């Protein structure tokens, strides 16, 4: 019998803080761990009054029956989760895996690019390509050395790993597009590129590979509510077609995606989101740091 999240929700079994904004949650959900495949995402609702936020699955362990999420605390919900969720906490709702799994084809040499919040979700793809027998070149980008994580995991499944940092404190100095240029210069026979990260970074990657006609897959992250195709909030322009990222994606051909449209659409609820964030700051200030009673509203 599937005991999805019945009862008290899904239990968080591990928490790891990579930096003051990035944290990892490993959540027990054996059925989802069994079903999850690279490229899929989940929707999390941390508490009863929370919003539903989509998060790409960063790893899954079928033996332990867990899935791993790596989250950047950027908005009210993700910062509140950072503050409140500990080992043993339960997420009010966790549903997935959603979206069409990435197509791990017969490519022989693959470039897996992850930047910022895209570093974690590129990992299952790199591992899947490695398992399919491809030569995998990983390119991961961080702002600086202190924000780096999972280097060992990537080293274990990549034949080559190029680390890029904005300030040059580790690996090469520059954005992931620098890494792509370096990789392409060394390997003229790359068949495929997968890029995950903020829209502006994926746009840069698509432009970097376009001159070489390397098939480039990107994973899109628009605003969505249900994640099952029902609300249409996540519609994206792919060439001259409109697609719903949640059920037609989230993977699309990066050379066809209208990234400007995506970036504008991500601003849709910015005013309300900002207000929520400010209220959250205020409530944190009133609380005088964590563990000082309620005073939430």
């Amino acid at each position, binding site marked *: *019998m*599937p005991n*999805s*999240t*019945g009862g008290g929700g899904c239990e968080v079994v591990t928490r790891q803080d990579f930096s003051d904004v990035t944290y990892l949650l490993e959540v027990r959900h054996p*059925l*989802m761990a069994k*079903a999850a495949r690279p490229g*899929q995402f989940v929707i999390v*609702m941390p508490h009863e*009054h*929370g*919003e*539903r936020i989509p998060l790409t699955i960063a790893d899954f362990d079928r033996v332990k029956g867990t899935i791993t999420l790596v989250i950047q605390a950027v908005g*009210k*919900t993700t910062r509140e989760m950072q503050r409140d969720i500990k080992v043993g906490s339960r997420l*009010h*709702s*966790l*549903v*997935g*895996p*959603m*979206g*069409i799994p990435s197509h791990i084809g017969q490519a022989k040499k693959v470039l897996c690019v992850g930047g910022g919040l895209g570093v974690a979700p590129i990992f299952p793809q790199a591992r899947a390509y490695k398992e399919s027998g491809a030569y995998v070149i990983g390119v991961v980008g961080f702002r600086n050395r202190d924000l780096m994580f999972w280097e060992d995991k990537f080293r274990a499944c990549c034949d080559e790993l190029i680390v890029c940092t904005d300030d040059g404190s580790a690996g090469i100095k520059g954005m992931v597009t620098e890494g792509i240029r370096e990789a392409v210069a060394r390997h003229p026979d790359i068949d495929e590129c997968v890029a995950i990260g903020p829209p502006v970074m994926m746009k840069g990657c698509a432009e970097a590979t376009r001159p070489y006609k390397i098939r480039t897959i990107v994973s899109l992250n628009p605003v969505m*509510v*249900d*994640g*099952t*195709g*029902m*609300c*249409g*909030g996540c*519609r994206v*322009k792919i060439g001259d077609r*409109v697609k*719903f990222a949640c*059920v*037609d994606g989230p993977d699309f051909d990066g050379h066809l995606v209208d990234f400007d*449209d995506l970036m*504008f*659409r991500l*601003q*849709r*609820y910015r*005013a*309300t*989101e900002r*207000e*929520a964030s400010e*209220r959250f700051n205020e409530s944190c200030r009133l609380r005088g740091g964590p563990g000082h009673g309620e005073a939430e*509203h």
Partner: protein
Amino acid sequence: MAAKKKKTIRMIPQARTPAHEQDPRERACNFLEVTHSYDVEQAQLEAERCLMCPDQPCVRGCPVNISIPDFIERITERDYRGAYDVITEANLLPAVCGRVCPQENQCEGVCTVGDTLEPVAIGRLERWVGDLAIKEGWSNVPYIEKNDFKVGIVGSGPAGMACAADMAKAGCDVTVFEAFHEAGGVLKYGIPDFRLPNTVVDAEIAKLEKLGIQFECNTLVGRLFSIEQMIEEMGFHAVFVGTGAGYPSFMGIPGESLNGVLSANELLTRCNLMHAREFPNYDTPMQPGKQVVVIGAGNTAMDAMRVCLRLGAEKVRCLYRRSKAEAPARAEELHHAEQEGIEFQWLASPLELLDDGKRNVRGVRCTRMTLGEPDESGRRRPVPEPGSEFEVEADMVVYAIGTNANPIIGQTSKLKLDKRGYIAADAGLATSIPGVFAGGDIVTGAATVIEAMGAGRRAARGMKAFLGLRDTDFIYQDRPAEPVATLFGIDRAEHGYARVRLPR
């Protein structure tokens, strides 16, 4: 029963008993229910209006064939519990259906009284009985003899609920899977509280749980496990797919990706299920428009417009390419929307959504339409009137022009689909996979709550036949006598059914 004096049209109360409604100006600012339930005197008075005609067209007009004159008769006899029992034989959710059925096209549309006077307010009476049942805590849990069949229901909307109820009554172990974090489907995310309060839906779901039905939320069937896995690995003997048609349509005109343009589904889900209207107490954001244009004139469009009004819009306009007579909304909803001050632009269709230069919508360029020859749906086809273009101001544009088939089940199973992507099912709602049935919007395309419930019940009949279970409807309902009612001393409906016991 003692012979009653036959009623005639002249003996009954001539005017339909009005139900109290919130004042339009007041209610346009709140999410409380618009129409109040009858009180007991009003219900008595209205029940007197039923002629108890022998023809009973209303029963045939009801998609689930409730014995309408029977339950009304119980009301006149002040046997309210009896009235509830009569309704729930056919319909588990009277408080819901009494509120949202388009009665004017169904039972009330064919009511004999309606030939001369206003028809009996069957919907309001049904609702009154349903509300009374919730208040009194009545529920109809029949004696259920358990069998060993496991039935899985995909989707907890009206189709799934109706099928689940029938299968649970037949003795099966029923589990309903829902992708959202709350059960109820469109009744929860779609229909706003002022028309159907979520507390009513929850009360009706609690009654289903009393029948032993389990609800598993946060479960996206197709992706977490497939329909095939349910049958082959998870031990389900039969599955019903009632996932609804959710995949909102847009028109493909310029400007649809501008900010401020959204589907009615998104607006309603944010507002109803996610409580965005209670921001910041709830986290889901929603930026209400001041000048709202809603495209479409069905029930969803009416809900979207009235929600926008309650969220504080100054002006809400409806654009519909046909005329008022063709509008698919329930008559009462359309009337309520007009009362609340919604402006209707009949025979008008959008051509382009206009950009304010910052990627926000600022208006809609429209054209007037005229009605031409009837199309395949039998309605007159609207054609643009040359040179009639005009603009309306809008900072929010909501699409409520219907939905397409949701692709998830198609992507993840071998179920045969029809040309438009809906699940192909035969008259008994059996699909291409043995043991898998489907019904509701995912088979027919967008329809009404009660039609989905009718489909759920029809699928349950097919499912019982598939599992070799007796169909209690066959045995206990009065059916037109067959030429020979029994064969070898056994009721014809009982032929072919042996009591099968599976090893535990």
